[in-house]
């Protein structure tokens, strides 16, 4: 059976949150798909960028389960082409922020041997600790 979308007041809250964090009027996206057709990372994504926008419009929290926003490289190919002038990379960043702000550690630093830790670049550590791609 096809999946059901259940709409509740939670959905509005989630949409409002993403609009606030991104500063983008997500609701004006008219789902033309220019972003998806332009995206160089599309082959790796589970949701297309336009699908990500659609789910945010409907306030679907499940958007956060997707890899799409973590794969967004902020190359702005979508942004410079969006006929509605939306900056999708900001929306992707907003989605990342929602997860990041939960401050969940994805690795246990103490489990990493000290000599290995000394070798690891800071950015890789932070990435691994906070981002789902780690």
């Amino acid at each position: 059976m096809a999946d059901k979308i259940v709409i509740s007041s939670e959905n509005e809250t989630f949409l409002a949150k993403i609009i606030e964090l991104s500063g983008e009027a997500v609701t004006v996206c008219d789902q033309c798909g220019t972003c998806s057709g332009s995206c160089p990372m599309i082959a790796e994504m589970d949701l297309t960028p336009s699908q990500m926008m659609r789910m945010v419009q409907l306030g679907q929290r499940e958007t956060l389960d997707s890899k799409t926003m973590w794969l967004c490289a902020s190359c702005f190919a979508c942004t410079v082409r969006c006929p509605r002038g939306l900056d999708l990379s900001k929306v992707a960043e907003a989605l990342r922020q929602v997860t990041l702000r939960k401050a969940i550690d994805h690795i246990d630093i103490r489990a990493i041997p000290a000599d290995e830790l000394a070798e690891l670049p800071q950015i890789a550590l932070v990435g691994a600790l906070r981002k789902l791609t780690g």
Partner: protein
Amino acid sequence: MRVGVYVCHCGGNISEVVDVKKVAEAAGAHADVVISRDYEHMCSDLGQKLIADDIAEHKLDRVVVAACSPQFQGGTFMRVLETSGLNPHVLEMANIREHCSWCHGDSPAEATGKAVSLTNMAIARVRLDEALEKRTMPIGHRTLVVGGGIAGIQTALDLGDSGFQVHLVERSPSIGGKMAQLSRTFPTEDCSACILSPKMADVPANPNIELLTYSEVESVEGHLGGFEVTVVRKARYVDPDKCVACGLCEEKCPVSVPNEYEEGLTSRKAIYVPFGFAVPNKNVIDESVCLRLTKGGTVCGLCQKVCPHDAISFDDKPRTERITVDTIVVATGYDTFDAAKKTVYGYGRYENVVTAMQMERMIVHAAEGSPIRPIKGRIGFIQCVGSRDEQVGNEYCSRVCCMYASKLSQLLKRSDPKRDVYVFYTDLRAFGKGFEEYYKRGQEAGVKFVRGRVAELLEDPVTKKVTVKVEDTLSRQIIESEFDLVVLSVGMEPNAGTESIAGMLRLTKSPDGFLQEAHPKFKPVDTLTEGVFLAGTVQGPKDIPDTVSQASAAAARAIRLMNQGEHVLSPVVAFVHESACDGCGECVAACPVEAISVTSGVARISEAECTGCGACISSCPTDALDLRAYTNDQLLAEVREAVGEGGGRGTAVLVFADDMTGYRLADNVGTARLTYDTDSRIIRVPSGSRVTPKLMLEAFAAGAGGILIAESEEKSSPYAGSAKVMRKNVAVARQALEDRGIEPERVRSIEFVTVMLAKFAAEVNGLAALVRKLGPIPEDKRNYLSKGIGERRLVDSR
């Protein structure tokens, strides 16, 4: 005095922001306001009756309506007064919709305060209103139609058939416009040329129509009932009376250039007939490419030698013709979007990317069995090229592309059912009569409609095939496939000539760049310039049926005016307080239309010539000049209410907005729901020049914090020289402020066109912010200011 005040809800447009009860209550507190009401719809029958009944019952002698902009319903309420036995000029409207509820929707408390203040300003003004005499002028039966596409043709024929004299001016050598290039018309698939050509032929056959092709309107002076039009008739170099379009000249002409009619797919000669069914069907020489005309001397001249009718003359010169008409219909049409601007689609660089207009021509020739370019393989249409795309600056939908792509795609599919035809669209809009059914026929024929806007096209450098990259947004899969031919469904843009005709006729543009109608619902073909009408795509994208309807409507609206035989003129004219006039004659020089003379030591105004701009008033050293309906006393009374009691907070920004542009711009800003500082009051003046330095200083003395004069851009102002006088007045006022130790930057002026919505809001906000930073003008300085004004002459204005 017995004033009635009526506060309109405008069905929520006002009352959802402004507390209308409070406004009515505040107005009712004035001793001379005998009745003050609020009502759902003042402009409705019942609302009008309410006023009429009150005038009878309460013996009202003044009426204030706090509602929308007077440019919309001013006339309605004036008629109510007139039919109730009052002079229509003892009415004032407080614009609490465009200038209040619509532009302050985010601050209802302040909006209510402002609405009270605007209503008080109107009350202060209405007390000083005088009964003004009706002036009329005769109006004849002559119309100028600008543009000879289907809109102009239909308008001209309707007017001509109704017995009105028409001058139809067309820029190119033939009438017919874009419709003459189309293959078939949707949704009925009539052959476009077949249905258009008889109409084109009717034009020169109509005894009431004078057809001026290859001609351009150079300038327009005057007004309804007396537009003086200068038309330049370009040199054809071929005498149309002798030419029979035999084609011998074309055979001999050695110059070949891209053929505009065929969208550059074929070439034409320097001497040519625009197309087969051109009207007039005569040759013309393109002087920009003809060898003789570009190089001079005795170069070439083959056409002249071969012409059997001696029709060619290289000495032909452009001629200027002057025409006087009573009304004007603008039907200058559109241009297709320049596809090369959308660089990701490679138009002009990729061999197999064409525009839809080129496809129209390709289909016409293919159907005639003489293809001008092969149509084979897989074909893809890309929709919304240049429409609904903020990246190219066009936010609007062009309304015709969905249906013409449906048409072209199914014509192609039906002519060869094995052919793959795809249409990539964002939304498919099939809103017109028979459109949805026609779209379905395309689907039945096997055209594949894919919902997704194409992201980019890539050309294979060897095969020249084009790869389309697009998301099928319905399946959420990316399509990356090769096409043999890609057709760009380009949208409509305002024609290149729109700008100049708009300037000549003082027409305003909507934010999309097309010309603005007087009212989007009830005056869809009128403009704010009386006697000027719009027909067709010059007003906005539309298809042929809508264009023809509008063209007939424009003709009917023009006839409505002309059949009245006379036209009522504005009673706003300058007048002289004779006892104060010492006959110095400075106003004579100041008047831009030479309407003032000095006889027996007193200035006299010729009311027939006076345009009511107010430019003369600041020239008078003795304050003897004044303007009806905008008297010194009225403006000052309005200013005093605007700044608030006892000078208010001292931060009010007064915007003196000229009637032609500033005031309408402020209306448009409201209509667009742009917001700006609530501590602003818009005061209507006929022109910026009406705001005298003395009035400005009096305003500051009364407690104003800043003054902005919103004036028409010089070239679009109805009043010659107003901007110049305004600039001088501003300079005088600033100097006077500086001399009295007050910041001169409190006075600003901007010369606007009516599309500068954001700039208007930004200017008001900028001045409001500055005034807040500077603070109110201290009381001692204000007192000093008011003393200074009493002197006989403020500053030598010479």
